[in-house]
């Protein structure tokens, strides 16, 4: 079924479809699909995916019977279970969580900056069926853990979440994706950081092989604000992690880290697009992948430094270990610099595991497999050591051990 037929058939189940402005907007998006030649060579959002699966999909969504739970376990600490992308509303003097349908549609309707260039964001806008908004109120420091649950097979979740950190606030956000059913989640996180706020965003992805996860996040940072993202991907299914970041006011920061562990025929597509639009801003990216068997990964990164963005610091680094001759990792870090007083760098290193290091370790009595495992662990040692939550660190270690147990 093509996009148009799919949309018309399911229109009544899609959020805000009765709104004329949104209908018009969605028709434009459908036109983009109908007129696009889907040139894989020049559109990074299309690399390494079977486009047919994502465009000719069978739409299915179930409004969850069970309501999601929001617990205020400890002071300033909340846990949320999001079911099929939906979440109950909740409010206290520190945070406000609102179901998407209770929100003003304008907050959810358009994403001018990233629509048109990213087909999956367009699909999200077209078929929107779930999502929520979380506001951290001024000067509050909050921890939230979100467990994302999908109830049935064959569901197509199109979820949009808005996160707003008001002035002087901070949020430590942990999102867990551990779905075992055959479904597709297309999630767009729109993040707004007000003056002097901070969001530490930790995503753990560990879905089974028949679950597709497409996560796009779009952050905008005002003066003195910081967005930190760490993604650990252990999924056996397809995962796409794209991040678009705008440093719109002075002295703001975006730090992105992505570690992925692939095997079998897994694919992980990563893309970042960072726009430095004010002076004294920093961006730092580290993406590392371990690829076994026939797995594939991409890392496309574009850091754009506007001419007003003097004193910018922008760094991009990607590294990959290929454990098999059939694994592949395509990396393309790019810098576009229009200011003249900047510190920027980019680098990429991909290759098999260091044979000299293996020989050295084996010559001390360590088996080849033990040496390989110790070198894989050491490859991401710096990132693992930088996780400041002991509980999170243990969880990642456990998943790493499971991944390493399959390395032969």
């Amino acid at each position, binding site marked *: 079924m093509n996009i148009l037929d799919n949309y018309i058939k399911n229109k009544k189940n899609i959020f805000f479809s009765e709104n004329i402005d949104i209908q018009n907007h969605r028709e434009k998006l459908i036109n983009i699909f109908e007129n696009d030649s889907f040139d894989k060579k020049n559109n990074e959002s299309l690399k390494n995916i079977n486009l047919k699966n994502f465009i000719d999909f069978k739409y299915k969504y179930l409004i969850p019977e069970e309501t999601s739970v929001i617990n205020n376990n400890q002071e300033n600490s909340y846990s949320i279970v999001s079911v099929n992308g939906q979440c109950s509303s909740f409010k206290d003097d520190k945070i406000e969580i609102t179901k998407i349908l209770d929100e003003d549609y304008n907050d959810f309707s358009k994403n001018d900056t990233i629509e048109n260039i990213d087909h999956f964001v367009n699909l999200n806008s077209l078929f929107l069926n779930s999502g929520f908004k979380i506001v951290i109120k001024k000067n509050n420091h909050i921890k939230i853990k979100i467990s994302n649950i999908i109830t049935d097979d064959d569901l197509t979740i199109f979820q949009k979440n808005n996160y707003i950190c008001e002035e002087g606030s901070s949020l430590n956000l942990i999102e867990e994706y551990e779905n075992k059913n055959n479904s597709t989640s297309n999630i767009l996180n729109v993040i707004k950081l007000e003056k002097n706020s901070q969001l530490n965003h930790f995503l753990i992805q560990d879905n089974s092989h028949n679950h597709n996860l497409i996560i796009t996040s779009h952050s905008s940072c005002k003066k003195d604000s910081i967005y930190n993202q760490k993604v650990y991907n252990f999924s056996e299914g397809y995962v796409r992690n794209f991040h678009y970041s705008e440093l719109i006011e002075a002295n703001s920061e975006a730090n992105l880290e992505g570690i992925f562990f692939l095997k079998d025929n897994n694919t992980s597509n990563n893309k970042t697009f960072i726009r430095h639009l004010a002076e004294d801003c920093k961006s730092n990216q580290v993406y590392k992948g371990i690829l076994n068997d026939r797995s594939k990964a991409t890392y496309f990164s574009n850091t754009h430094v506007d001419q007003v963005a003097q004193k910018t610091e922008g760094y991009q680094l990607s590294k990959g270990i290929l454990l098999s001759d059939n694994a592949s990792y395509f990396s393309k870090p790019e810098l576009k610099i229009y200011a003249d007083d900047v510190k920027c760098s980019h680098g990429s290193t991909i290759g098999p595991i260091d044979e000299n290091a293996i020989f050295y370790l084996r010559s*001390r009595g*360590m088996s080849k497999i033990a040496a390989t495992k110790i070198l894989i662990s*050491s490859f991401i040692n710096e990132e693992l050591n930088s996780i400041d939550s002991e509980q999170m660190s243990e969880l990642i270690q456990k998943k790493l051990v499971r991944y390493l147990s399959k390395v032969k």
Partner: protein
Amino acid sequence: MFLEIKDLSVKIENKNILDKLNLNIDKGEVHAIMGPNGCGKSTLANVLAGKEDYEILNGSINFKDNDLFDLNIEERAQEGMFLAFQYPVEIPGVNITPFLHSAINSKRKRMNEEEIDNLSFAKLLKSKASDLGINIDMLKRSVNTGFSGGEKKRYEILQMSILNPDLAILDETDSGLDIDALKIVTEGVNKLKTKDNSFLIITHYQKLLDYIKPDYVHVMVNGSIVRSGGSEIAAEIEKDGFQKFQQ
């Protein structure tokens, strides 16, 4: 015989390196191999340790009644062979202490000995490091990462003293060492010498042999041993160089 190398010929990437090399080392002996650059000394060390880049064309190596070619790299180490690398490999992120602990236990396991626990190992490591003038803080670092040339060599000897091998091969351990570091390293080696273990020392210079007294000195030229004898050969080389052996 502890180590018996018979008619060993080896090549790498279509280049013959060792040519019908013969060498016998018995228990408790210290042998030195001297030779000009590119004569095959390091190749011999790597072949003994099991590096897989080389093609064995001919010959045999017997070590402690084992056909060495039947043992892989780690089995050779577990059987008591140790190579002190000419260029120790930097391995960021692999901490020295757990690495060495794991290494010693893999050897003990093969020998059907009880594994050494954390506390006993920490004590052993501390005491051996102190003997070699190695700062305890260094043991918290990653293997060879950020070490100076001298520190790397000292760390190789520390590993050797912990693993207590039956046959230690020192591949140009003296290169890059200043005189004080050379003294510390060679004292460390001398402390390990017993009637039950053997050493094969590869070097260009006599200086190292002033500190570690060899029982036999061999001259290697073009992949073969062309002369064997006592310490007088080292003195001869120091005086006249290798040229006369190459003719």
